């Protein structure tokens, strides 16, 4: 087993997901198969190889710090699952 049910539950927690017992069982098998497959990369010696995170080399573009309105407050609230006046409503955080 590459990944135990306990580890899966921990990863699910990190990802803010929750699974039923059945889902955990089938996911467990599938995740293990996939993780076993990707272990193939261990065959390669990558010592001294720089990782690539961005395939096309670019300098970081900058722009001047000017205010531009792209969308209005009302537009940004338009898909809110719950709103009150100009606020998004959520369960209490603290």
């Amino acid at each position, binding site marked *: 087993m590459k990944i135990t049910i306990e580890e899966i539950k921990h990863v699910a927690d990190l*990802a803010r*997901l929750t699974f039923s017992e059945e889902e955990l069982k089938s996911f467990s098998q599938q995740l293990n198969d996939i993780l076993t497959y990707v272990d193939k990369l261990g065959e390669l010696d990558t010592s001294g190889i720089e990782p690539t995170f961005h395939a096309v080399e670019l300098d970081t573009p900058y722009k001047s710090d000017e205010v531009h309105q792209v969308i209005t407050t009302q537009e940004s609230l338009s898909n809110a699952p719950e709103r009150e006046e100009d606020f998004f409503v959520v369960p209490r955080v603290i």
Partner: protein
Amino acid sequence: MSELTELTAYELSKKLKAKEISCEEVTKAYIEQIEQIDPLVKSYLTVTKDIAFEQAKKAQERIDSGNWMPFTGVPLGIKDVLCTKGVRTTCASKMLENFIPPYDATVIERLKAQEAVFLGKLNMDEFAMGSSTENSAFFPTHNPWDLERVPGGSSGGSAAAVSARLCAASLGSDTGGSIRQPASHCGVVGMKPTYGRVSRFGLVAFASSLDQVGPICRDITDCAMLMNVIAGHDTKDSTSVDFPVPDYLEAIKDADSFIKGLRIGLPKEYFVSGVDKEVEDSVRASIDKLSELGAEIIEISLPHTEYAIATYYLIAPAEACSNLSRYDGVKYGFRAKGYENLSEMYKLTRAQGFGPEVKRRIMIGTYALSAGYYDAYYKKASQVRTLIIKDFKEAFNNCDVIATPVTPTPAFKLGEKLDDPLQMYLSDIFTISVNLAGIPGLSMPCAISSKGLPIGIQFMSDYFKEDVLLKVGYVLEQNLKMGRRIPKVLLK
């Protein structure tokens, strides 16, 4: 089947300019075609009939006032991963089932500036994760060449719609092959531009270092026409490059002379057992044709090909789990009911809003990035990515263009690969390296199999050489003479 829907976007555009036909009748023809044929193909998630007719009216006004542009009045379908202002954009997910973007993606803005007509939003695998469109939270799309088979994915709706004449042309997105593979399965043309060639602003992000928007369309000319509009720098996408955009339509004009002496590389790792014989034979026949026309065929090697899938299925999920962490039920999208606190709200929302494949990838990505595993998985994969890029750099020292199959087999049956996600992943083998390297790739039809299924050929080139791909594609297209390629669903 109407004559109007048979015209390519380019042909349509010329007739509209010459006022031989009106924008309204073209839009009407497409809407009728959708109403008749789409119940069988199921490519559209949202059809915007009224909006389309309004846009057709505006388009006609533009033409009448002498301000025609290439896409004025041309009816398009858009993969539902691109934000369209005021029009539901779902990414084929329950998470965004009722999400109405307050802005347009840049590529949409550019087409709207020409008064293109938008017929609606096209089906896809949920959040672009999949190779068959079966991961759509709503329903699968059916391949117009055989309704019991998949159209491919994740841009399956786009490829099916173009193939079945349900739009004149389409935009899709490609992260691991999601334009090229469905284009191949549906017998149409698809291009993934170089990373950074086309703006990703308004493209719902899956894997930010791999995603690109690109055309899915009837032929190479339409592809060039779309590339002319969508390619180019955008200050709203800091990964878009500020390099000049060639006129791709001009580029394909001198295509014939271009082929003489062109070096076409065949990577031996792509012509191995496991590739369906008809696929290999068809691809080789196309290459023979190019050789007859003067191209030089060279065997090359891309030695790290066998590691590409493992590399991709660590990098893409890692980037995805980060991108999809925004779906938390707070500001937009689905929010679950029955939670007692914030943490529960997040977990229930995400557990109910996402489908199984999305959850699988979020889990893989989270694991690969988590403390203790980052070096062994994500960093390792990113190092192998460097090796894959080196393979291509080496290859392009020895050839101008690389030719390969697009998929190991033609389209498989609906349901055939659903039980084994890993099997589904392995079918991406020929398309995936292109995204990892960031180079452009073109997929185009090269044959119809003995079972009546389209087979595609893929060309890859060095960075920002989409014009080279289009030239090769155009010459092949002209010489293959495959005709109108009418899928079975239209032959009733």
